[in-house]
């Protein structure tokens, strides 16, 4: 059983079973192909995937802007499918921010509380609190068109947080910001999530954003979830080729299964050398498989010591690190990444014969 901070059993905030969404048309478009997901209370959960993978559709179903074709959707154990958006204790930070242009910053932030019929004094107090939280206090009476993009982003966030929702949905909220502001807001969002204790469901196509901010990540493709796990899990142990390819750079190696022991598999590489690799519990691959090895998880050694042998085709200098492209003798190619420091000088040159090694359990057996 997964356990929360302090050993309390975790509550499930949002739970979806076999959630499908098909848009009618010629031909019909299947945006979600039966999604099962459990998002825990008080977690920073990210939906990651390329555009069109269904992540925004899933978010809009949770918000209630659209209705699923079939399936169930529960919040803390109760179905929310019959509740319109204004009856769901869920708030959204829109990609376009969707700030009301005819209202001031403070009026925007207070809107949700006003709609809930809260007394004026309480609204004013909460608005002040929220503006302090996102550091916008001086801007209270500005029109939303008079503030910068970063500030609009903060107002959108404050507006969604003000009614103290159980779940906050964020639809690529950082995509319109420039690089430096985006970095700052990533930390800011993480801070807000842990301070408020609200469940954040964050949609992004930016893998780095997902890896830095999330407690858990769901990688989506073509309307279904390919893998759910913590950032380390996803990065170090991708379950399948799509995940390995979408997040970071990966080398794919042909190999043959030679036996297994729980999540460890003995594999034979194309060079005939043997090593061990990790595999998912729920898969039972046999025979020919594909292994994934991250470029920074392998090292260059002398030809004789390597698990794989080949010729150095290209050396590309990147400042912080150097990439080595190796033509392996089985005809595939392999990229290694090694950190630079001023005291290491380039000993190798193009055409040299080299060996490649990586530790036991570093390689990951991919699901077919």
């Amino acid at each position, binding site marked *: 059983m997964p356990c929360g901070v302090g050993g309390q059993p975790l509550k499930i905030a949002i739970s979806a079973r076999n959630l499908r969404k098909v848009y009618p048309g010629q031909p019909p478009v299947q945006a979600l192909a039966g999604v099962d997901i459990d998002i825990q209370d008080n977690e920073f959960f990210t939906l990651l995937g390329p555009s069109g993978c269904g992540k925004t559709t899933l978010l809009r179903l949770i918000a209630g802007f659209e*209705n*699923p*074709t*079939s399936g*169930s959707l529960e919040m803390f154990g109760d179905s929310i*499918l019959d509740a319109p958006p204004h009856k769901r204790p869920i708030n959204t930070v829109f990609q376009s921010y969707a700030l009301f242009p005819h209202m001031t910053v403070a009026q925007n932030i207070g809107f949700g509380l006003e709609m809930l019929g809260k007394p004026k004094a309480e609204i004013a107090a909460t608005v002040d609190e929220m503006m302090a939280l996102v550091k916008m206090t001086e801007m209270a009476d500005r029109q939303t068109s008079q503030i910068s993009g970063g500030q609009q982003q903060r107002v959108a966030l404050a507006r969604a947080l003000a009614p103290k929702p159980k779940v906050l949905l964020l639809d690529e909220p950082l995509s319109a910001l420039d690089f430096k502001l985006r970095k700052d807001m990533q930390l800011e969002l993480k801070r807000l999530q842990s301070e408020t204790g609200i469940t954040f469901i964050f949609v992004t196509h930016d893998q780095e954003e997902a890896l830095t901010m999330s407690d858990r990540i769901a990688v989506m493709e073509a309307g279904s979830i390919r893998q759910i796990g913590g950032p380390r899990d996803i990065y170090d142990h991708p379950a399948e080729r799509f995940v390995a390819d979408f997040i970071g750079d990966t080398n794919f190696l042909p190999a043959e299964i030679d036996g297994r022991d729980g999540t460890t598999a003995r594999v034979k590489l194309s060079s005939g050398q043997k090593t061990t690799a990790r595999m998912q519990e729920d898969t039972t691959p046999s025979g020919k498989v594909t292994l994934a090895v991250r470029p920074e998880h392998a090292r260059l050694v002398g030809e004789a010591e390597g698990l794989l042998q080949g010729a150095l085709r290209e050396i590309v200098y990147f400042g912080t690190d150097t990439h080595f492209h190796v033509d392996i003798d089985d005809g595939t190619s392999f990229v290694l990444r090694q950190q630079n420091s001023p005291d290491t000088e380039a000993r190798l040159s193009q055409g040299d014969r080299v060996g490649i090694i990586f530790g036991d359990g570093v390689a990951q057996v991919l699901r077919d």
Partner: protein
Amino acid sequence: MAGQATSQDQAAARRRWLLLAPALTILVFAASGPLLITLVYSFLAPGAFGGVEWEFSTDAWFNVILQRDIFEDTLGWSDAHLSIFWRSVKLSLMTTLVCLILGFPTAYFIATRPKSQRELWMLLIIIPFWTNLLIRTFAILELIRNEGTVNSVLIGLGVIDEPIQMLFTEFAIIIGMVYVYLPLMVLPIYASMERLNFSLVEAGYDLYATRFQVLRRVILPLVKPGVIAGSILVFVPSLGAYVTPRVMGGGNQLMIGNLIELQFGQGRNWPLGAALSITLLAIVMVALILYVRAAGDEDVRHG
């Protein structure tokens, strides 16, 4: 579960038709419905003092282009009607042509102004368009009547002794229609001209084209949809014009619109008036359909 989306769709559809109901009711009562009744009337016999007799008759449709000679009882072309049809088409085409010759350079002129000035120039085109058609016709009338400004000035300068008779001629009708419909030519041409990427013009000159060649080979093909739209927008109302030929033509130079009115006034032949109306409507619809086809083809090619 599957019923969820469907029942919501049904609710949305019901809501949509409820919202549309008031507008459609008014339109059925004061636009579409009367048109259908007009169609029915065109198949009835005329009443003695206007109105209709409720008996089926195709006489009205015969009389649109044919007439029966009273003395010899033979069927012949209705010269009066045909000459009015011909005049309507001729004057409308000439109006369209003049509007094009004047409107194209004007639209080009506005489109080549700095961005900040363009809206102001366009406003100058739009203002006359939204002002009373009768007043504008009247303004032109005052200009060209025998005792009007043009003749007064010419006589004052000693160029002529007698005023030139311009009013109540086909020329006057064309002047009047060009004057009132010119904005309709400028608007769509400007719309497509504004989107014209002038680096294409630069590329034209770069490849040794002269000014005229750039105009003919680069600019014109690119703004053709606007030219077609403008021509249709001028041609259609010209064909159905009523006020301008009545005021400028003075009852001598009838166009279809005036012929139709005549059937409800002195002519007292409502079915013929109805048949003529439907004929005019049909011609206009054909023009509009041709236009939509042309515009659609353009979209496909550019899409």
